[in-house]
């Protein structure tokens, strides 16, 4: 092994390096892709897993949290499941691989392996910065996934569901999706485990919206209680485009979902809604950065966290407004219901502002259930535990209802209900 520094590697770091040595021979890709993969793994070796001294990972000390990795191979076969919303077109990655036929009328779809083999995916295999662990790992190991090209002006009526489903083992998938000018679509990115043995999953979605595209993108993470899931979305928004991104975390043992948005075109509008349902021994980290680089753009982020049992929750959000980005309107809020004394939640909502004619703000609260509301419900005869459940549900349901897409709202509400029934 090529040790670039004198640093001693941890068990998990060694396991990752070894996994790469074993996998590299069978990973798809031309020479350019291979060079990119090698580069990323040596960057990883140099830095290792991030600790809390790395500001981006302040509350998720991976060196301490990620002790071991499951074997690369899955423990059992995995097959696609029914889509979240009936009638969606499912593109699935099963145990890390694209299986069977796929097609999507009106959209150009290629298996990621193909774009790796012909080298067209090489440019995307890069880390965002020195501390971009997910970019490094995913780029080095990626195998399955789909590259989608939605043509300009296309109006997709049915949702597209990008599914990763596995039964243990290691899965690294990627979804480069380009929305052409003026196109409209709904995409559901859904990650789930079939529940046999621990899995280590990384996913990376590279989403670009051309001018005036209007997209709803849902990420639903429902991995198993022993799984590690690292997800990243990189987003670039063109002029006048609009993206509604929903991140729903309802599973996993060690989870980090990153959202990085570059608001690059004037009049672009970005909306992030996060729902983190945390129970058991979960460590869940939602990390978000928005770069407003041009004038007249808006973004709004609302994160709602419900924390039970011994769960640890983290939200890091950073809004950066460049000097030229006058008239930016950016609002971020993070609200947490902390429902157990053994649980904790940490939030770091940052503003970094270099333009003066802006309206930016953030709010963060950590609260218990509102006693006035609880009293009101009980005064109407609703027993205390039922009343509490209603209020917890309302706290997150409020966010979902904004979607105004009935089948989608119902599907997400069902996910939330089921989760709360199990944990509340």
């Amino acid at each position: 092994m090529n040790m670039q520094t004198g640093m001693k590697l941890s068990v998990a770091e060694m396991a990752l390096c070894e996994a790469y040595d074993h996998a590299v021979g069978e990973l798809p890709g031309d020479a350019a892709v291979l060079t990119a993969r090698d580069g990323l793994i040596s960057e990883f070796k140099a830095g290792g897993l991030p600790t809390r001294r790395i500001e981006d990972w302040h509350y998720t000390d991976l060196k301490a949290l990620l002790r071991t990795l499951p074997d690369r191979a899955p423990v059992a076969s995995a097959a696609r499941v029914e889509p979240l919303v009936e009638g969606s077109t499912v593109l699935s990655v099963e145990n890390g691989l694209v299986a069977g036929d796929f097609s999507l009328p009106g959209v150009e779809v290629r298996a990621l392996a193909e774009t790796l083999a012909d080298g067209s995916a090489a440019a995307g295999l890069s880390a965002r910065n020195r501390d971009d662990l997910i970019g490094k790992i995913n780029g080095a190991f990626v195998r399955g996934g789909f590259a989608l090209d939605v043509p300009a002006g296309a109006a997709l009526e049915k949702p597209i569901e990008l599914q990763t489903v596995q039964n243990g083992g290691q899965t690294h998938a990627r979804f480069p999706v380009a929305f052409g000018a003026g196109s409209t679509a709904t995409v559901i990115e859904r990650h789930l485990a079939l529940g046999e043995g621990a899995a280590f999953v990384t996913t990376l979605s590279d989403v670009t919206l051309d001018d005036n595209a209007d997209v709803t993108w849902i990420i639903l993470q429902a991995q198993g209680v022993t799984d590690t899931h690292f997800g990243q979305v990189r987003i670039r928004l063109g002029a006048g485009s609009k993206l509604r991104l929903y991140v729903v975390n309802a599973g996993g043992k060690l989870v980090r979902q990153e959202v990085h948005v570059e608001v690059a075109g004037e009049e672009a509008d970005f909306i992030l809604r996060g729902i983190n349902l945390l129970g058991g021994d979960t460590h869940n980290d939602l990390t978000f950065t928005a770069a407003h680089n041009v004038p007249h753009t808006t973004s709004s982020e609302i994160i709602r966290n419900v924390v039970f049992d011994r769960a640890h929750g983290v939200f890091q959000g950073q809004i950066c407004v460049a000097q030229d980005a006058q008239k930016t309107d950016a609002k971020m809020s993070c609200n947490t219901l902390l429902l157990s004394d053994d649980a904790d939640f940490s939030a770091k909502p940052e503003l970094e502002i270099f333009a003066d004619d802006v309206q930016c703000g953030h709010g963060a609260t950590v609260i218990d259930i509102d006693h006035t509301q609880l009293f009101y419900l009980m005064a109407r005869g609703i027993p205390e535990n039922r009343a509490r459940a209603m209020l917890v549900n309302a706290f997150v349901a409020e966010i979902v209802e904004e979607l105004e897409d009935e089948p989608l709202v119902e599907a997400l509400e069902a996910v939330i209900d089921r989760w709360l029934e199990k944990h509340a």
Partner: protein
Amino acid sequence: MLEIKNLHARIAEDGTEIIRGLNLTVKAGEVAAIMGPNGSGKSTLSYILSGREDYEVTEGEILYNGESILELDPSERAAKGIFLAFQYPVEIPGVATMQFLKVAMNEQRKARGEDELTTPEFMRRVKEAAAELKIEQSMLRRPLNVGFSGGEKKRAEILQMSLLEPKLCILDETDSGLDIDALKIVADGVNALRSPDRAIVVITHYQRLLDYIVPDAVHVLYKGQVIKSGDKTLAHDLEANGYADIIGDAA
């Protein structure tokens, strides 16, 4: 129906005594008005009756149908038929009004050993009651009390009262923030609920509401005690002469 004996109560957090030896009896079928100047303990009394934990009863007893309710939590009291129409109805974003009504009605039925309502039966009842109170369906689709005007909130309280069919209704300053038309609608709703087996306690600062909900008895609350009781003419006296005389007499 309601018997309050030598009640003393204070704010749990800082120990401030608000109710200081209050005695009050309200019979079934009766409409009792409780009046008094600001800070006399009117709203506190309504919270104590419905079991709000911010207040501590230090002495005395509250009997409801001969039984002490001090140990019951708010939902148990509600299931027994005690209803408080809040002065400031609470907004609960994310909880749809319809969903809330259904859960409340069925939980109370469950607690009394009755069957849950079927959805069509529930819908029928809500529609009827809403129509009586001139409440639009669109309002019921909104989250509970969120974005309701002052008048809409008060009407929604009365809607809940008629659906839940309580035995002891406590109306806390239900007239505040209402214009005259809304006041009439609310009063009609309350009057429709008057019956021999039901008692209504109307807490109000002004006599105005009592023109529409005519009380059988009027009690004046001052510094946490009932200092004078009488019939409806007492309310008119108060309107004409203010509280000063009565307070002077009591002192």
